[in-house]
């Protein structure tokens, strides 16, 4: 069904910043037109919210190498159920995605298995080792939408500056993890009273600012297109603001976990709350919410990182970092809406429009001509999350047992229904 009419829907338009009761017509897999008010025929959406599907920037899928943690099939199902219509996948797989050949394998697997769109990132340096740049040109031709070494920081500034200079000549986007590795090495939590009481190795918040300041200085020198994967501390925000004011081509993201949880949630060494960078103080959390609302931080993502039970059932210091998030991104983000911290168009600007724009994708909009990648959801339905109901192969969510609000009713990719709650 690539032609359809959806009516009696609350249209969430992040571009116009509006919320209107109206209708939307799909033709040949694209949005043909939208309008206000009632319209007969087609599908009655029952007054639920209809928004552009989420473009989740930074999803880890375990292919190649760790398919037992997450496959394109399982990740795709989780994404569809969570209203994510485009997964922008990370190259920090067991075998890093650092050659056109590996990228082609990933693309082929994704096309065959995933029910949602997959746009792969490629590594910036070979083996993500920070020494030699990858074949950025070939990788762009093969479909890479951005270049990133994941959470590996390129410590050699000469290598990074050359990568930036070369990437700029091709218009390629670099996504980096701003962090000073000398300070963050071995850290499990953020420095402060909580870390000291628990006796855990910690990283000061300043490490993020140092990393960001360095990267931004190199961006100023090279003119590269740059996106900071996660900005999570208030101390890093002024540098970001200065860079944007100076007209540098810079954007930043934040994970939903840093907006809805803080360091105290770790409690008695709960390893599902161990993420990278580690959870921050409540003051930092609130500063990040404000920065996202004000548009200083552009992109809200899940940083979906599947880990199996074995790598989490360890002492906190030894346990793996990361949390799954494809299915919980929207209900967790709706906490900001229910707390009156963000409105729905603002949320979808960060969840869909901004990441799509940054990567040059047509998705993320409700305007005519955009692909009919859509999510229909009820923002109010309450539920208690049971991690074993997640579609991801890995169940490492920090929201297990959490009370949440917001349920996806239906998801479309290119006008095709890829998820409905009735069939779930």
């Amino acid at each position: 069904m690539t032609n359809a009419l959806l009516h009696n829907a609350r249209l969430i338009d992040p571009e116009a910043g509006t919320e209107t009761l109206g209708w939307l017509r799909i033709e040949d897999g694209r949005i043909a037109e939208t309008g206000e008010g009632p319209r007969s025929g087609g599908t009655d959406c029952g007054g639920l919210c209809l928004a552009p599907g989420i473009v989740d920037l930074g999803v880890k899928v375990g292919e190649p190498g760790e398919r037992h943690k997450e496959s394109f099939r399982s990740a795709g199902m989780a994404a569809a159920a969570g209203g994510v219509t485009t997964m922008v996948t990370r190259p920090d797989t067991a075998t890093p995605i650092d050659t056109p050949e590996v990228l082609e394998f990933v693309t082929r697997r994704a096309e065959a298995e995933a029910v949602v769109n997959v746009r792969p990132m490629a590594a910036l340096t070979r083996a993500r080792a920070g020494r030699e740049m990858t074949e950025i040109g070939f990788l762009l031709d093969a479909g890479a939408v951005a270049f990133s070494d994941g959470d590996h920081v390129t410590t050699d500034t000469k290598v990074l500056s050359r990568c930036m200079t070369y990437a700029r000549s091709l218009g390629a986007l670099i996504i980096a993890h701003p962090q000073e590795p000398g300070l963050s090495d071995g850290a499990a939590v953020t420095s402060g009273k909580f870390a000291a009481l628990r006796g855990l190795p910690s990283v000061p918040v300043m490490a993020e600012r140092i990393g960001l300041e360095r990267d931004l200085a190199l961006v100023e020198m090279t003119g590269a297109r740059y996106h900071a994967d996660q900005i999570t501390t208030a101390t890093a925000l002024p540098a970001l603001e200065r860079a944007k004011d100076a007209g540098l081509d810079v954007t930043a993201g934040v994970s939903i976990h840093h907006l809805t949880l803080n360091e105290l949630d770790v409690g008695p060494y709960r390893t599902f709350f161990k993420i990278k960078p580690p959870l921050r103080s409540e003051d930092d959390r609130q500063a990040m919410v404000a920065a996202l609302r004000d548009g200083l931080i552009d992109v809200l993502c899940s940083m979906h990182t599947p880990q199996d039970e074995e790598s989490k059932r360890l002492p906190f210091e030894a346990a793996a970092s990361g949390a799954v998030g494809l299915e919980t991104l929207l209900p967790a983000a709706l906490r900001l809406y229910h707390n009156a911290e963000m409105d729905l168009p603002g949320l979808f600007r960060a969840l869909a429009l901004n990441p799509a724009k940054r990567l040059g994708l047509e998705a993320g909009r409700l305007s005519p001509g955009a692909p009919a990648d859509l999510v229909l959801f009820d923002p109010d339905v309450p539920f208690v999350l049971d991690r074993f109901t997640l579609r991801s192969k890995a169940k490492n969510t920090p929201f297990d047992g959490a009370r949440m609000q917001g349920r996806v009713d239906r998801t479309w990719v290119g006008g095709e229904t890829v998820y409905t709650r009735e069939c779930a």
Partner: protein
Amino acid sequence: MTYTRPHLLGIEDLSQAEITTLLDRADTHAEAERGSRDHGAPLKGLTQINMFFEASTRTQASFEIAGKRLGADVMNMAVSASSIRKGETLIDTALTLNAMHPDLLVVRHPHSGAVRLLADKVNCAVLNAGDGRHEHPTQALLDALTIRRAKGRLHRLTIAICGDIAHSRVARSNIFLLGKMENRVRLVGPPTLMPSGAADWGVEVYGDMAEGLKGADVVMMLRLQKERMDGAFIPSEREYFHRFGLNAEKLGHAKPDAIVMHPGPMNRGVEIDGTIADDINRSVIQEQVEMGVAVRMAAMEILAENLRARREAGE
């Protein structure tokens, strides 16, 4: 009987009454040790396993002697040498041991929180013999008992804890315990060995021994690990001893009857002058070792009582 917990994992969650219960019981064992040596074999028929994932001589010996004097069957497992090398996880090790039905499990582990993780998976009583930089509850209890016997009370005292606070589980457990018992706790040491956020712990932080020791009733020195002396945390051993090592001159700032403590093993000439350590009028270091056995007896005896009560209740 106010200590009804199944385990002794740390001081942080304990109440004043629970701490007092443990100390009172330890006092009776300390007296018995000095007198009749008759403890009545309350652990007879119980199996105690000492599982040390980190090398230890003193603490392990102390737990072993405490168990044997109370009649337990004691077994030592040097875990670092066996299963860890074979890649077994902590939880698997715990489950394997649990299947052998031990009654008391004494655990030391290099990672903070690891002993608690293990305690969740077994159905015997677990005693934390030190987890990472987190807690070392029996050390804090033996320090408290030593102070109480020397000073006649365990409240309204000024206690200076000196040295490597950041990496010390002994310091953390002592800060919790001495704070709960309403003492004035001071931390003294170089800023590189002070944990971030220490000032928020309800303690006073000093960077100078003369100020930090002024008017103190108790001076508690901490061991400086060899690996911290290489220039990364302090410039050198001799500069550290000059600025933070306890000698007669620095001790002169404390009260005239102040006692000197050290959890051992000591680095003479690094954090403490040998003559101070050996001064029987000031140093209670040997008594700390003695109280260590009494405290561990008390803790294991109370946990064994709780274990038997739970088993009789059919839990």
